[in-house]
């Protein structure tokens, strides 16, 4: 019987996709908008789990101010342990049982890939997935109900390539990368960005997440004659790599990927003995620990918002990421106005965004058009000096380079 009900609701959902000015859909009631999320809150990637809590903090903040046109956002967070075999049933639960309006900010490349076909077949928006895998912005034509948010990993490493070609033409490059799609995406972007100069890479070595040490890889890269090293690794491995580089008596020019370049982690690396002065990274979000934003209105808003989450550390860069992406989500819902259908929401998110986000670096816009579905494509080079990241040069726009 319940199956019949689910079907009727689903049928209603499909029927109402092109609505007039006042339209709603599954998961929308007169006073509530129900969003769903799967993220790792246990297991190897549990450190990311706080992102969803930070997102919820922003929704709480909005709800306390009266919600969106009188509707409050209810956000259901389920823990998939970074395991696609969990993501699939949990996502089906959210869609079929809890009847969410849309999935928002699901975390992980493989986990979100595992439910992408299903969500697109059901025409449930898979909004702003928390991964920089290129496919989520690039494959719009086959998966029009899916959209990414953060800059793609490949775009970021293209910026590094540009920095190398502009400023360090004679460098010998070594790469340490995680042996999965995340690490490989970064490596590909670097090679593509270097183009005909890709032979500047003298060695690239991978590690597995089960590794206790990356010393062997780094010794090889050092021995291959590299004077510049790219660390395309998650936070814990990045810290280990930075400390190991110092411990093997090496001082190359270091590039740290933005997933791991959060100031808290750089300071951890320093405490672990690493010499990280002069390291390069890129950023697009304001760093909560950076004193230059102390009087910034966006940062002050962030501090107000994050107080709604009792388990969140305000200095953790993952949390401002969560608040920033939740800001975009709320922005999309506001833009939709009274036409709160799944079809309208995904249309706005994937091709009509043009947002100034107070939590992103000045000048970064969140933009999508009918021909470009990568919301954030501007990043700025950062250099670690003293005890903080410092913005270098101006924003680099990578829009249109990834095809």
């Amino acid at each position, binding site marked *: 019987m319940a199956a019949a009900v689910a079907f009727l609701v689903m049928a209603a959902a499909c029927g109402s996709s092109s609505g007039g000015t006042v339209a709603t859909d599954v998961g929308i009631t007169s006073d509530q908008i129900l969003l769903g999320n799967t993220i790792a809150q*246990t297991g*190897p990637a*549990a*450190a990311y*789990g706080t992102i969803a809590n930070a997102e919820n903090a922003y929704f709480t903040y909005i709800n306390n101010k009266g919600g969106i046109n009188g509707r409050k956002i209810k956000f259901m967070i389920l823990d998939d342990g970074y395991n696609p075999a969990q993501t699939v049933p949990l996502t089906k639960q959210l869609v079929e049982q809890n009847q969410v309006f849309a999935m928002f900010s699901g975390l992980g490349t493989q986990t979100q890939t595992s439910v992408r076909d299903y969500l697109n077949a059901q025409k449930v928006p898979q909004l702003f997935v928390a991964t920089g895998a290129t496919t989520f912005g690039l494959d719009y034509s086959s998966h029009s109900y899916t959209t990414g948010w953060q800059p793609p990993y490949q775009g970021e490493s293209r910026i590094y390539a540009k920095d190398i070609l502009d400023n360090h033409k004679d460098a010998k490059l070594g790469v340490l990368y995680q*042996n999965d799609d995340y690490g490989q995406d970064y490596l590909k972007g670097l090679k593509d960005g270097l183009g005909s100069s890709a032979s500047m890479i003298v060695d690239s*070595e*991978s*590690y*597995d997440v*089960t*590794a*206790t*040490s*990356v*010393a*062997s*890889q780094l*010794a*090889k890269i*050092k*021995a291959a004659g590299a004077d510049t090293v790219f660390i395309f690794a998650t*936070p*814990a491995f990045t*810290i*280990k790599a930075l*400390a*190991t580089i*110092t*411990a*093997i*008596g*090496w001082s190359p020019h270091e590039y740290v990927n933005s997933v791991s370049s959060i100031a808290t982690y750089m300071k*951890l690396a320093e*405490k*672990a*003995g690493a010499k990280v002065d002069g390291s390069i990274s890129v950023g697009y979000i304001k760093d909560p620990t950076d004193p230059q934003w102390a009087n910034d209105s966006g940062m002050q808003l962030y501090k107000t918002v994050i107080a709604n989450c009792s388990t969140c*550390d305000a200095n*953790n860069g993952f949390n401002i990421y969560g608040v920033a992406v939740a800001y975009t989500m709320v922005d999309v819902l506001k833009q939709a106005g009274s036409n709160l259908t799944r079809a309208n929401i995904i249309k706005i998110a994937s091709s009509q965004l043009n947002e100034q986000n107070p939590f992103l670096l000045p000048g970064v816009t969140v933009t999508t058009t009918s021909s470009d579905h990568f919301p954030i494509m501007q990043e700025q080079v950062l250099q670690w000096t003293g005890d903080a990241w410092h913005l270098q040069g101006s924003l680099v726009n990578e829009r249109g380079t990834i095809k």
Partner: protein
Amino acid sequence: MTEFAQQVISGLASGGIYASLALALVLIYNAMGLVNFAQGEMAMLATFLAYTLIGRGMSYWIALPITIVVAFAGGLLIQRVIIRPVERAPVLTLVIVTLGLATLVNGLAGFLYGYIPRDFPSPFSVRTIDILGAAASYRDLGVIAVSAVVLVLIYLLLQRTTIGLAMRAAAHHPEASRLLGVRVSWMLALGWGLASAAGAVSGIMVAPILLLEPNMMQSVIIYAFAAAVLGGIESPLGAVIGGLIVGVTVNLAGAYVPGVGGDLQLAVAFLIIIAVLVVRPNGLLGRRAARRA
């Protein structure tokens, strides 16, 4: 040549980590013929205790002995409360109980401290010295040195004291020991206490290198298994030698054996375990066939 030397030195540094945990495994094996699957997790939890004490402003050199004593008491308590009821049960039951303990302790640490990696102070500096053109940090050398000290202490305890004699007797000939007035069950508890204390030292030494978080020891325990098995699971000296060999082998295989590469290093440890068990189950320094097993 320089790279080769660097690979060996880095391997020895990792090996020191594996050896220090393997020593704890060997202690429990000597006490009751069991491999404690929870050894790494217990070491991790003890390290969190030290972390909390230091975080409260306590000096490192006061927190260290306190943690070791508490870990000793904790090991003793664990043996009395959850191992003793199944002490004479088949090894299968004991393995399942220690697996349960490992899961429980890991969950508990996640519950208490979360999953964000934390830095942990080290008494050794990260300055490096030059050995054959390769760099070795004092911190890495310190782990090896501390393992050696723990090894000597264990050796002295087991071979040169009455308690050590009683422990070995209780493990090898429980019935005869009982007749001679040895309190066998308490000897087992003592073994657990000592192993837990040795594990705490291991955790405190490796946390500055591996970063402290609940899953810190999850791969290390596999390498430590390999180290203990390779050395001969009853032999403390074997555990240290085994640890160093495993560390170096894994590094060299990753660097020079085609098809292994950096990402299959743990598989090399697995192969070492299998090869030793099938070819020479007593390991390098093991003397007799494993009894209980």
